[in-house]
């Protein structure tokens, strides 16, 4: 594994019309995604982080084909999927998604065993006679007892339901799974179980994972690479160390410091980032973050900073990036490499 990108996004943009329909006046335009360029290597795990309204869920939906981009290309294993009216079946099956709310993602009137059988039979993944065996194997893979197959979704806990959704996604043997806040609605102790399941699946099946989350702790734990989004743009991309001392963008640094940690004595006198998120229908000119940035200069209002390489494996969109000491970067890269991944 690790040979070339499994997914490559180039110049992906998407706008939505929002607000009231008034005759004679155009509706407001919300730029959900603004020229997104992103590469995902096979077998790796990418985290996409950002606050509400940054476009991370729209990006997830465009990757799996639930939303079509206005412009740009989405290439899966080299083939552009963005223009196709219907995706080729191989691509549609190869890219699967796990949603945030495990209950609304399941049919409440279907036994969970049948919910897993359905894609197996529809897509003829295994011969009909072998399907029940495959269903039990999938339940086992996600850590559920096959005896639960006759239960309905409401009879399961939130964590168990999310395992069913993961089993359904796995049933069509995908190569890439996009998980949109897949552990966010769960309690801490259950969340840990689901995160461990994702890392086991990645290691055992060689899956590529895209983990969309607002929780930087989770992303740092699970991912090989991280993309940070703000108001429709990727503003920094690199190793997970950018969520620690390695941040070059002021937003990444502020976001990371704002995360509450269960460590006493971290109380700061000032919030990490002041001010409110600007309206996404009318974002600031130039750099979108400039209205809240501690290091803003006149240039930031005039020109939008491009997402340029700042170091090997590290891109940042800032005219005046933070200074990151080489020692801190070295220490963090060493910490990144500590994660054992049999695929690497």
């Amino acid at each position, binding site marked *: 594994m690790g040979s070339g990108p499994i997914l490559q996004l180039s110049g992906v943009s998407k706008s939505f019309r929002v607000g009231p329909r008034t005759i004679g006046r155009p509706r407001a335009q919300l730029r959900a995604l603004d020229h997104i360029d992103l590469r995902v290597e096979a077998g790796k795990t990418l985290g996409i982080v950002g*606050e*509400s309204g940054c476009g991370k869920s729209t990006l997830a939906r465009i990757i799996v084909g639930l939303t079509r981009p206005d412009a740009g290309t989405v290439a899966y294993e080299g083939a552009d999927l963005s223009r196709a009216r219907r995706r080729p079946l191989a691509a549609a099956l190869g890219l699967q998604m796990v949603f945030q709310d495990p209950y609304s993602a399941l049919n409440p009137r279907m036994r969970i065993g049948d919910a897993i059988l359905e894609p197996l039979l529809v897509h003829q993944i295994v011969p009909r006679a072998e399907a029940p065996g495959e269903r039990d194997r999938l339940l086992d893979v996600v850590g559920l007892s096959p005896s639960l197959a006759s239960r309905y979704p409401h009879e399961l*806990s939130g*964590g168990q339901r999310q395992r069913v959704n993961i089993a359904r996604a796995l049933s069509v043997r995908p190569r890439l799974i996009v998980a949109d806040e897949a552990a966010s609605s769960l*309690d*801490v*102790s*259950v*969340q*840990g*179980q689901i*995160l*461990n399941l994702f*890392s086991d699946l990645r290691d055992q099946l060689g899956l590529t994972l895209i983990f969309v989350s*607002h929780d*930087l*702790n*989770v992303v*740092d*734990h*699970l991912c090989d690479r991280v993309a940070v989004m703000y108001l429709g743009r990727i503003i920094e991309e690199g190793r*997970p160390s950018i*969520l*620690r001392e390695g941040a070059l963008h002021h937003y990444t640094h*502020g*976001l*990371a*410091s*704002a*995360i*509450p*940690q*269960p*460590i*006493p*004595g*971290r*109380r*700061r006198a*000032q*919030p*990490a*980032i*002041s001010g*409110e*998120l600007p309206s996404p229908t009318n974002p600031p000119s130039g750099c979108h973050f400039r209205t809240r940035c501690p290091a803003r200069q006149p240039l930031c209002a005039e020109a939008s900073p491009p997402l340029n390489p700042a170091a090997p494996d590290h891109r940042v969109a800032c005219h005046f990036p933070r200074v990151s000491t080489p020692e801190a970067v070295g220490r963090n890269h060493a*910490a*990144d490499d*500590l*994660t*054992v991944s049999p695929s690497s």
Partner: protein
Amino acid sequence: MGKAVQNDTLAPPILQVDGLNIEYQGGPHAAVAARDVSFTIRRGEIFGLVGETGSGKSTILRSIIGLLHQKAKVVSGAIRVAGHEVTGLDQAGLSDLRREHVAMIFQDPLRALNPVMTIGAQLAEVMHAAGLRDRDAVQRLIVGALERVGVADAALRMRAYPHELSGGLRQRVAIAAAMIRSPELILADEPTTALDVTIQDQILTLLYDLCRDTGMSVLLVTHDLGVVAEICDRVGVLYAGRLVETGDVARVLTAPSHPYTAALLASMPRIGERQSRLRVIPGRPPELSVPGCPFAPRCAYALAECGTIRPVLEPAGADQASACWRRDQLRTCLAEEVSVG
């Protein structure tokens, strides 16, 4: 952390909860929401009540201000706010309590505010209830209240309706409304859970500063031990309706005296501490009352007696109490379990 309180442990209590039992009645079995819960909040203190879904944290908070669900009943126990008994109060008594001593901040500020009134009118309503009639004075007080919670352009913003404000601003307005009567105790039920992290950070800082400036106390209900570490002085950890550990935040988070607290801390992913696997707590909380320690079936350190004899909250060192039979023996291994790296 907690400078204002640490040097003054003799501050009088503002809230005393003693042997509180709450049940949800009406189903085939009475479901227990709180069992033998006792804790004290002193004046000027920020007390965090943490627990997972269904641990009873919100039910306990609501019982203090008489906002329990119809089916929920305080079966026994005492709740005293500033020395006044709260359980058994009628509507008039509860109104007095809410007017004089206690205010509440909810998780969802949009539902806590009236959608068809400007925020200025809503704040004015509170002043009118207090007997203030002079328009100019009310106006000045509202602008002052909004400025105190960090609302810029207060004179302009008071003419806005709740839907015109962002989530963070709405929560600031809700805090302003709660603060107008200078309450002695604020009950905050997951006040930042619905907000983005940078806004959560701002609201927590605001609550902390208001508390330190005015000397009021806060009971903060949350599922996030990170939030507790940010602003609380003391903490109570709930499991299946029972307090399993209480104490000074710095001690509980670095040297927990109950295996559940330690397991909860160890199962949280933290930035900068990448491990190949997260520690998890096997199983899930019991749905019915069990004879022994409620955590025993999931506890890595449980002995046979833990399943039969129930431990009660007893002192475990200075300003820390634990409901675990093995609290003294486990000290070192629990501290190791949560230690960093």
